[in-house]
């Protein structure tokens, strides 16, 4: 039985699958940061296109990520609407000009090209990182996650916790199912036939046995790890870590060039914003 995660690693033979997990993690984090900081629309469109191209190369099928995409789109849309509702005039105050489409600038609710442009920028910022995140999650073997995290400077004990969590998710799911069935036989209704309240009570009865079962397991696991010297040294090596190849250096060079371009644009624009209204 596969671990029923929302999205998961899918082994394929593409350039991105062959990159080291650390490269992908560094690339994702670096591009996300520069993209979050900048409001240069040309730059954002650029990396958006770049990440779409990568997504295409990674051969991730739409069906693998459909659910996650829908959730993200819904949240992004909600967020953008809220941004407008709470401050419809914010775009004008950023860009310092007033090109009205609807309403007057004195009213609370109005619509200006500046606001639309600002929201468009936000939209780009929300979306460009999504393909990158999905690429990292789907083209990186979970076995490599911990190694990648540790390589970017996170303590290996914390990094390994991620791996252990992934390892034991199926066990906890199985425990949950077993316990749930036993409680149903006693008479707790958890199925959809029951009303909401009895269902909540029924599910609550699973928690206590589940916690006890898990606690017991944690003790055994930590002993098993100690008996094989986990935590003995300050560092550890990783069997599944992919050594850096030519492509990794190339990829990191491209990422640094993009980040440098982003920083250079701050200087050119005299700030984080690129303002098309005043030229």
């Amino acid at each position, binding site marked *: 039985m596969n671990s029923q995660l929302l999205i998961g690693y899918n082994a394929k033979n593409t350039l991105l699958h062959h990159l080291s997990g650390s490269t992908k993690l560094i690339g994702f984090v670096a591009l996300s940061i520069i993209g979050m900081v900048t409001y240069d629309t040309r730059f954002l469109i650029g990396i958006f296109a770049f990440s779409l191209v990568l997504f295409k190369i990674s051969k991730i099928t739409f069906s693998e990520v459909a659910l996650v995409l829908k959730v993200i789109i819904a949240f992004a849309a909600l967020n953008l609407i809220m941004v407008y509702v709470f401050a419809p005039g914010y775009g004008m105050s950023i860009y310092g000009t007033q090109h009205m489409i609807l309403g007057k600038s004195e009213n609370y609710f109005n619509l200006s090209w500046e606001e639309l442009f600002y929201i468009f920028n936000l939209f780009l910022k929300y979306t460009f990182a999504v393909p990158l995140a999905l690429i990292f999650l789907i083209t990186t073997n979970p*076995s490599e996650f911990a190694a990648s995290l540790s390589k970017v400077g996170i303590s290996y004990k914390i990094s390994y916790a991620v791996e252990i969590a992934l390892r034991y998710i199926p066990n906890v799911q199985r425990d949950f199912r077993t316990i749930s069935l036993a409680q149903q036989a006693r008479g707790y209704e958890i199925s959809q036939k029951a009303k909401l309240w009895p269902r909540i009570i029924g599910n609550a009865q699973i928690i206590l*046995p589940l916690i006890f079962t898990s606690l017991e*397991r944690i003790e055994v696991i930590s002993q098993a790890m*100690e008996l094989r010297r986990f935590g003995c040294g300050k560092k550890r090596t990783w*069997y599944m870590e992919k050594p850096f190849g030519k492509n990794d250096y190339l990829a990191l060079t491209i990422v640094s060039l993009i980040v440098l371009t982003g920083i250079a644009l701050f200087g050119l624009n005299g700030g984080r914003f690129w303002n098309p209204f005043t030229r």
Partner: protein
Amino acid sequence: MVEPIISFKNFSFQYETQSEKTLEQINLDIFPGEKVMIAGASGSGKSTLGRCLNGLIPQAYPGKITGNCIINGKQLSDSSVFDLSFDVGTVLQDPDSQFVGLSVVEDMAFSLENDQRPQTEMHQAVQKWSRKLNLDDLLLHAPQDLSGGQKQRVAMGGVLIDESKILLFDEPLASLDPASGAASIDLIGQLAQRQNLTVVIIEHRIEEVLRGGIDRLVVMQNGAIVANDRPEKILKQSLLEKLGLREPLYLSALKRTGIDLKDCQNVDQVSRIDEPQIGNKLKTWTARTKLGEKSKKITKLLEINKLSFGYSEDQQIISDLSLEVKKGETISLVGRNGAGKSTFSNLITGFLSPSSGSIKFKGLNLLAMSVKERAQHIGYILQDPNQMISKTMIYDEVAVGLRLRGLTENEIQERVENILHICGLYEMRNWPISALSFGQKKRVTIAAILVLEPEMLILDEPTAGQDLKHYTEIMTFLEKIQREKGLTIVLITHDMHLMLEYTQRTIVLDQGNILLDASPATVLTNDATIKKACLARTSLFDLAERYSLPSATDFVAKFIQSEREERA
């Protein structure tokens, strides 16, 4: 003279949390290359002794050490778990929990990763040991895709990769089916010989471990060593029986037929046992003993007709299965992991719905009833009581089912107290459940089901991990409530002893259908079935074959009958 690799001298240990010593005055020398089994009932201190070998005592379990313990030249009291892990490789009882990697290779390389070895070295080491342990084809598999036996091999690989010279097994048979258990014991024997290892096995299932050939048997009781000798010597004196441990079944049979073990040679292995008179004595005993008439059960209780179930058309987990269960029967349901045992019981209890077929209970259509309604007729009891208990007090736990069925508090009190009396829990009714032992918790979960007055019980591995005393306690209790309440009991089990001794009918499942439905003695003397369903031959069968008795089945059935009579 060879120096011992492990040496305890006047060694005692007291856990910080306990008021008395758990180990008292242990003197034990184990020499390089020896295969030693440490046996004893729960609470005898055998696991504590194991924890001293790998250094979990005193590091993870603090306490007071007196006396001396030296392991491969290192003083226990000055060594950490990390230090000792280079000398002693530990394989824990539950190979699933010991599996900390996301795949087989990662788990095998785990300790090398922690030693900061370079990748090329790890690759070579994994390659070497995966070949020796026959794990080559499984390297990239996730733990949930492996069988219990395979997981245990991975666990062995994960410690052998350190090239440590001492291997410690904590109840290696506890979570394996009989066939994998036997394979595992064989493998341990081979490895020990080829790699020149010193092996310490902690187990209470003595017969199975002895089969693999053991140099020395150490028996513990109340924290002290009460026997420490070649297995043959201990067996000849019938010490195990006197100490409340289970002696190998073939030895009980020999004694039953009036043979004095002291006259026999090689009693530690049924395949090598030697004494010319045995054959005659066995034959006379078998001829003299008459099988009693079986009381015929006639009332139909459960009728299953052409039951099928599968998650997809071409993957049938249960296919076209028909079965009749009579009132008052005790049935064992056996078969390899994945044969469909749990799916089958889930179909009966209503956790799953069949794709076709019918199930009738006393003529009523069971399939039309909800899980809750079925639970009033058929109770299902999980292996691990911790997975069933949802309340903190015994009384409440037993009362839950009735409260959910809307009975008045007076009625509930009457029925709960009645059941608590029957289950011997009445005096403890106001105790918190956390204060109970494993066996007592098990009884609470059975009481919580019995209070609903089911006519049939399905128990999943009721005796797993229990020593002889607790095992007998649970089974005597089940036999008692069966007599008193006229229950029908189905035991799902891997324990061949349990199936032989306590059930009258065995149903062997294989690939979703019934492979054989016969008496336990018939099943365990049928080589084809044993092999196909991953069961283990009983040593009684080996004995009967070795002395070419006319019918092995007959001999086994008669021996079991006489055992039962003695018990009653």
